[in-house]
């Protein structure tokens, strides 16, 4: 299962970076969404997968007994998902605004700030 997920995560990273290298801004944002989710999956997997063993102390017991799923990565992923969601929402609004202002979603057109304006 972990090997399979490793390949899935690798594929997601590759797809995300490929999309981010495209010139169309919409693809850049899609790539970003995929990258964020790939990172979330990676955190989840890197800590080790344990199925069907919630980290709960059974009735009549004093402490957790092995094996149990590590709850920390899940908490981390939850936080990361929320942050990723917020950032993605902002990025979508930003490209929409940029599209309205610039009139294009081609990244090659976004070069006016790099040029030194001619002083005439």
């Amino acid at each position, binding site marked *: 299962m972990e090997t399979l997920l490793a390949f899935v995560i690798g594929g997601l990273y590759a797809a995300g970076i490929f999309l981010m290298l495209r010139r169309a801004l919409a693809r850049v944002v899609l790539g970003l969404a995929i990258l964020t989710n790939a990172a979330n999956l990676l955190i989840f997997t890197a800590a080790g997968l344990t199925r069907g063993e919630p980290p709960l102390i059974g009735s009549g017991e004093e402490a957790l007994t092995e094996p149990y799923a590590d709850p920390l990565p899940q908490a981390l992923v939850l936080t990361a998902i929320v942050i990723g969601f917020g*950032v993605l929402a902002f990025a979508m609004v930003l490209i929409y605004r*940029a599209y309205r202002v610039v009139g294009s979603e081609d990244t090659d057109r976004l070069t006016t700030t790099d040029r030194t304006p001619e002083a005439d």
Partner: protein
Amino acid sequence: MDTLLVLPLLLPLLIAALTMGLRRWTFWQAMLTLGNTAALLAIGIVLVVVVWREEVVATQVADWPAPFGITLVADMFSALMVLLAGIVAFCAAIYSAATIRLRRAAFGYYPLFNILLMGVMGAFLTGDLFNLFVWFEVMLISSFVLLGLGGTRGQMEGAIKYVSINLVSSVLFLTGVGLIYGIAGTLNMADLSLRLAEVEETGLVVTVSMLFLVAFGVKAAVFPLFAWLPASYHTPPLAVTALFAGLLTKVGVYALIRVFSLLFADNNDFTQTLLIWIAGFTMVTGVLGAAAQNEFRRILSFHIISQIGYMVMGLAFFTPLGYAAAIYFIAHNMFAKTGLFIIAGLSHRLLGSYELKRLGGIVRMSPELTVLFFICAFSLAGLPPLAGFFGKFALARAGFEAEHYVIVAVSLGVGFFTLYSMTKIWGEAFWKPFPGEVPQDLQERRRSPRMLVMAIPAVIFAALSIAAGVAAGPVFELMERAGEQLADPSGYIIAVLGEDAQ
């Protein structure tokens, strides 16, 4: 003690909420923000004094014992950064109060300003790697909005570059966090420092450290990851630029120094070589980029990059003196660079342009502005007795002691190019006669109350540049203490994990 570490986070949050509620009463928003930044400055001073007396102070949020809970910790480096950020924020708040228009303020300028500060303070004080990620995001998302607020074409273009590359770096940071948890099973930095030293597959640790290097490198704007900075920093209003220039890249440098001194300081030959190359190229490309520019803010933006190279150079030696020199350089750079940006804003206010070709004759129009520029520019170029000289001197000495002569030579050579850029601004904006008609109301504008308020931060920064140079001995003692703590993290680890930490 606990309150002292939590206050820099709670205070900006509270003020952000209040300013959010005030909406159209922008005057009070500005006053609250000023009060907040002044309080942060005071907290910074108290924190430095406390840390000077007690070495490292730490607190566990909600009393969950480390390494399970979230740790807030301040060693000398963190305390100094909190203080410096307080100074920059205070000055940026004064400048904002004088220049930010009603419309921008009504759309949430001040709440964002305060949230940004909360993120910066959190990044300086946290002792937990994932928490560092969260504070970075808090800081970044408010900086995104501050950069884009106003919605001009330049801002949109700058924001897209800034946002997309910074988000990629955040993803890489998160990846590094995930992998390091997989390797060591903890994210508390003090705990990680112990656990990573025991990991047998050192190749894996070096790989993860490279992820952090790229992630923080983007935020610190090192070669070759800096392209977003000169593309975006000159687009928002100058108050925002000055705040970003003073704070944001330095948070990246802070994270680099913290992570590489605490977590990846062992078997670091590869990292050290890489960092030295990065430092050299960052300095040279930054300063050459600046030489090609003809716009006040763009020249300064490229100089930020060049100066980041010096800070990375201090880190790359991995010696106490190297760290101390890097921290002194951060302080000097915050003063000189933010001061210069504010001077750019003042000359824009006076003559209505940032283009060097459209500026001129400030020497005759405003002697006081000339003096301020003189101090900040020569401090940046590294002339004695200003702070920049001692920063470079300390770095050069650290380099000689660590026997890295080439990078020292490069850093000194870059100093001459910095001087060249500063003389270019001097010659174009200050010395040459003003092209065209001198505006009628120039002297009125020069003496207007708004101009005087705008000039306060520049005066503060110039004074600090002189003070940090003249009192270099006592000031450097603070940095040396910070450098020693970074080079020997046992005090940090004991403060976080308790006496019985292995």
